[in-house]
């Protein structure tokens, strides 16, 4: 890794709700280098979206960053000194695309208007220049009949086209980092594949760094260099994508892999992870996954830290070693299968 673009250091995000304080992100540290693709994996409510929104400076009341630091090329984005910088890079050097392009685009403005406003604001382009650049961007993301599409409203476009439009918008100012928050979840499978291919292609062409937030391990396998697995507001395992798939060390990672269908038929049945995710309102004692973990022991009620283990980091006292299928299967076969 040549240069760290984004570094998140021990980030804590709290949401104040009527029921109490939700500790959504609990000491997350991660970093993305230039040209790297980081997968951020976890189930709903694991804090992956909040972490990325914090990086973009999009956490507002009732949410609050209560601890840790976020740095862009070494400079903090938090605190009174960091805010101007955060505002300057948002939408320019760091851009974001969201899950549902239908609701993420303003329904009352044409796609063209929504792209050109970025260019006119950040790049101070005039109308004609912005229009020309928008057309270029639409071509770049593979939108058919781009000139026509510029004058269309989001409701007049298909889901895939809308997401391409979103991507075009995010890439308008040639950002160095693109945060993609489940960009394919709302799309059907063939369109999903197209969008992922597009992202991969764009990454190569533009030397883009990507944080890919997803709960789909298939997406991770195809796209990511490194993977961070989140659970209950914490990172439980971080390793290269290859290692995650061949040697998952954390029982939760293992559970995720086992609950994913495999096309090669090597695996017999899908296994769900029993139990439900932790209540983030509660202060947490020990390992967050302990109550659902098949290899739980008494020591798991004590706090665990993310620890260096060979070429990866794992937050588990009893991590697996070795190839994943057999070891885990033996220990988890008592859990209900479906």
């Amino acid at each position, binding site marked *: 890794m040549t240069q760290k673009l984004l570094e998140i250091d021990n980030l804590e995000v709290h949401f104040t709700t009527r029921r109490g304080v939700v500790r959504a992100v609990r000491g997350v540290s991660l970093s993305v280098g230039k040209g790297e693709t980081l997968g951020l994996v976890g189930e709903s409510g694991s804090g992956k979206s909040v972490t990325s929104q914090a990086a*973009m400076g*999009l956490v507002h009341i009732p949410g609050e960053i209560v601890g840790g630091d976020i740095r862009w090329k070494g400079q903090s984005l938090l605190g009174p000194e960091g805010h101007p910088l955060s505002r300057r890079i*948002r939408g*320019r050097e760091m851009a*974001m695309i969201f899950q549902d392009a239908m609701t*993420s685009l*303003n329904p009352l*403005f044409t796609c063209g208007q929504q792209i050109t406003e*970025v260019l006119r604001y950040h790049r101070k382009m005039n109308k004609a220049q912005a229009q020309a650049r928008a057309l270029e961007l639409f071509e770049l993301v593979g939108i058919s009949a781009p000139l026509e599409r510029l004058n269309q409203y989001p409701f007049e476009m298909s889901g895939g086209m809308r997401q391409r439009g*979103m991507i075009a918008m995010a890439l308008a100012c040639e950002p160095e980092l693109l945060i993609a928050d489940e960009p394919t979840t709302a799309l059907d499978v063939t369109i999903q594949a197209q969008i992922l291919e597009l992202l991969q292609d764009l990454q190569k062409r533009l030397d883009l760094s990507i944080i890919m937030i997803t709960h789909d391990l298939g997406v991770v396998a195809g796209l990511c260099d490194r993977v961070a697995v989140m659970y209950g507001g914490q990172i439980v395992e971080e390793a290269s994508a290859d290692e995650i798939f061949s040697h998952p060390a954390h029982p939760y990672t293992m559970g995720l892999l086992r609950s994913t269908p495999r096309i090669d038929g090597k695996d017999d049945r899908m296994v769900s992870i029993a139990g439900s995710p932790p209540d983030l309102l509660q202060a947490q004692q020990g390992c967050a996954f302990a109550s659902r973990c098949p290899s739980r022991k008494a020591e798991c009620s004590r706090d665990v830290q993310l620890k260096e283990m060979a070429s990866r980091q794992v937050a588990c006292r009893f991590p697996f070693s070795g190839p994943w299928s057999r070891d885990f299967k033996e220990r988890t076969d008592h859990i209900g299968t479906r």
Partner: protein
Amino acid sequence: MGRILLLRSWHGLIVIMGVTIVVFVVTRMIGDPVDIMLPLEATAEQRAAFEHQLGLDRPILVQFFDYVWSLAQFDLGDSLWQNRPALEIILERLPLTLYLCFSAIAVAVLVAVPMGVIAALKPGGIIDKITVLLSLGALSVPQFWLGLLFIMVFAVQLGWLPAGGAASFKHLILPALTLAIPTMTRLVMVVRSQMMDELNAQYVKTAEAKGMPLFRIVGLHAMRNCAVPVMTLTAWEFIRILSGYTVVVETVFAWPGLGLIALQAIERQDLVLLQAIVFVIAVIVVVFNLAVDIIYKVIDPRIKLD
């Protein structure tokens, strides 16, 4: 678009015809104009002659078709009280009333929209709480009482503004405010809650992620999405002011508009004039609604007018 306009106009025409029938029937039920117009000691012959002159001795259906036929020729009849064409009287008074209504609605919108938006920026914040409290308070005040209060304070006690009449801009201030305040309070609440919803929308997050400034996000992205419901209420309030509140407020402030003359027409049982006033207001309301429909389509391209 042209076809839709035509269709809408046709619908409007049906509404106007309905109103015509209702007005015709109702004005004939509120009393006998002959009793009012003629002195008490009038003989039966005189009464009959007068009835004949007004055409009231003809069968009701004949009267109705005669009325409709005149309407089609823009003849709204002659006022019984002033003995001149009702339309002439109305056209004298209408500009004053429209002036008052538009001033009131402009004040209401210009105050309510910024107020509601600012309140929505920080839900539950101090500005939000004050806004809600103020508008709930003002909402509970009856209009005629508000008008009288204004007169007492600003005209009688302080002597800053005239208590009645329509001679200058100064005369406009109190009646316009009296009309604007209840509308304003309702509008504030709608703008506020609508803006709160819109600010939570995903597209607002996208605009933020694009690095757009807050002013643009709120004032352009979210505002345009608020515009349709806010316009709906504004149009509705305008119609209520025009066709109802002005009667009270023009009376309180002796503003010589259509509302005042409507009240006088009722008092004098001038059913021709009253009929004409209601008809003209109905036409204005229909045209106004047609215009609002078209503006909807301009604001929100998803709206289908048919």
